[in-house]
């Protein structure tokens, strides 16, 4: 009897060679249509590309490697989800008020993942180089995975707390969600290269660290393992997406000097646009996490000022790219952004699909420690006033439509931000276009508006739409019904349905019953 030798598995080709075979040798020159007919969208923005082969993707990802690692990531994520469900993990949340941050996430962020999936699929068809096409294809699949895993993960909480319904309808209709929605609408209606600079570079490379990393760390700190797991799993794809963004900008800058001023304007525009949207995250981080990890200010200093302004922009100087226009205003706002945003959310949460509460004394002490005099002087007195009113049995909601007509025509945040150098003065800019007056919230948004007024005059502004009769009716209950907000989704946290459920799950009774 002879023993058959185990056949030696053929050694794979080196990574560089496998990647090159996939992203170069599978491409071909069109023979029965003109190149312009095959790729009609890459010329009208004025970007000049001389050699698509100049594109290098440092991850050198191939099809087999992509599926192998993504499958492993999903396996790990679903193991966490199972164990959380089996061990009644929802009982270990720091507090049910934490879930408000997750509501804002699923209403505002998850639908953006789906939008990103759609547009990267489009780039995977229309970019002329095979390497960027393949990178865009992987990203398109990633984004669909993110959307699905987020819905799947967060839906677990729906067994214990009842607010998960209608998030995608809300994304399209609710006033505060027009902030993230309008950003993606703006990016998707731009050309393919502007989209790459807006989403891949300005949003993903410059700002997603700031958006997602401290927030997911916060999820972990507040006992929400499933969110932390999908967050880190998604963010690990994000490191590939960031690479795509960084590669895109370097590639475009290297291809032709004429591209430089075009790219600079996109960096200027999209930094400010994405930064303005991140204001929602500032509010989530500082006010919606019962156990905070790091303040918005601290995260901004670490992930944006140190890593991007201090690290990346000196690198881009080589190509003649300067730090984004208006970046100084963002730096000057770091002490107040989250407070001003949360004041809006707190005032108007009767018209939202989450609840809010006046910061607790412990939270106030933390905010004061993080923000010092700026908080004590300008924001603490407002919260103390709310507390006094509540102690006497009241709760103030600003009964009206958010800031009425005055929503920024560009970022769509209600006009409640103050001047970057004066926290007592509302920042308010006006521009005239075709005999109409348009309002913007900052020099950044005004500059963006005046650069492309024809685009922004078409903005779907929530309050304008209500007043024009397009949102279910003129009264608050009619509008809320049209949004898909149900009774108990909104208003004050204390005594809300989430709060009641929390007490029941923890075997406690409400003060009323006690």
């Amino acid at each position, binding site marked *: 009897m002879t023993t058959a030798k185990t056949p030696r598995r053929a050694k794979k080709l080196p990574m560089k060679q496998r990647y090159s075979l996939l992203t170069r040798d599978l491409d071909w020159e069109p023979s029965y249509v003109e190149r312009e007919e095959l790729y009609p969208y890459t010329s009208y923005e004025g970007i000049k590309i001389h050699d698509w082969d100049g594109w290098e993707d440092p991850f*050198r990802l191939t099809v087999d490697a992509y599926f192998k690692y993504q499958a492993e990531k999903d396996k790990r994520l679903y193991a966490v989800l199972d164990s959380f469900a089996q061990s009644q993990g929802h009982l270990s949340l720091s507090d049910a008020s934490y879930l408000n941050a997750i509501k804002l996430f699923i209403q505002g962020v998850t639908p953006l993942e789906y939008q990103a999936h759609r547009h990267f699929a489009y780039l995977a068809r229309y970019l002329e180089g095979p390497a960027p096409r393949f990178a865009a294809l992987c990203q398109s699949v990633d984004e669909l995975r993110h959307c699905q895993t987020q819905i799947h993960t967060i839906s677990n909480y729906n067994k214990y707390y009842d607010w998960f319904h209608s998030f995608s309808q809300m994304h399209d209709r609710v006033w505060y969600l027009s902030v993230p929605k309008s950003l993606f609408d703006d990016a998707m209606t731009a050309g393919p290269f502007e989209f790459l600079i807006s989403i891949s570079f300005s949003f993903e490379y410059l700002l997603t660290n700031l958006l997602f990393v401290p927030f997911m760390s916060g999820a*972990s*700190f507040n006992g929400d393992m499933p969110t932390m797991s999908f967050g880190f799993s998604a963010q*690990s794809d994000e490191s590939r997406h960031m690479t795509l963004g960084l590669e895109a900008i370097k590639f475009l800058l290297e291809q032709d000097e004429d591209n430089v001023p075009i790219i600079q304007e996109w960096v200027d525009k999209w930094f400010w646009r994405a930064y303005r949207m991140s204001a929602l995250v500032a509010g989530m981080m500082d006010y919606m996490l019962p156990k905070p990890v790091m303040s918005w200010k601290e995260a901004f200093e670490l992930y944006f000022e140190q890593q991007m302004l201090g*690290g990346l922009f000196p690198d881009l100087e080589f190509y003649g790219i300067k730090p984004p226009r208006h970046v100084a205003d963002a730096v000057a706002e770091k002490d107040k952004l989250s407070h001003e945003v949360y004041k809006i959310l707190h005032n108007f949460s009767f018209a939202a699909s989450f609840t809010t509460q006046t910061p607790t004394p412990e939270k106030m002490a933390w905010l004061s420690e993080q923000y010092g005099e700026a908080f004590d002087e300008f924001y603490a007195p407002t919260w103390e006033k709310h507390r006094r009113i509540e102690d006497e049995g009241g709760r103030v909601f600003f009964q009206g439509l958010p800031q009425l007509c005055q929503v920024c025509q560009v970022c769509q945040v209600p006009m409640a931000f103050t001047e970057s150098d004066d926290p007592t003065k509302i920042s308010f800019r006006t521009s005239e276009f075709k005999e109409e007056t348009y309002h913007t919230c900052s020099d950044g948004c005004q500059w963006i508006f005046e650069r492309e007024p024809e685009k922004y005059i078409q903005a779907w502004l929530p309050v304008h739409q209500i007043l024009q009769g397009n949102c279910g009716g003129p009264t608050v209950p009619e509008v809320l019904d049209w949004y898909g907000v149900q009774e108990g989704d909104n208003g004050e946290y204390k005594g809300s349905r989430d709060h009641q459920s929390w007490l029941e799950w923890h075997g406690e009774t409400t003060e009323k019953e006690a």
Partner: protein
Amino acid sequence: MTNTRPVGIDIQESDDNRMLVHAIASDNPDMTVQQLPGLMKLSAPGRIEINRETIEDRLGREWETGEFQLAIVTYTGNFAEWDDDQIIVAWDH
């Protein structure tokens, strides 16, 4: 001088990844590791290099550089190299 600007990598906390971080630290003596909930935040002036061999020695098993995609959460810098034996994060200019 320009290349001493810090680069960084954030790695998800897990048993395997802790060993990964030990291995990376042994090849990058200037690197610091900061602990955040769920995360290990690596930072070093100018450059972080990750070597397959050092990691295999530490893990006691074969390790492909592609597996690093399962550990990394985010980074700052630029992937200057990513091949079968080595990953390098550094600034270009």
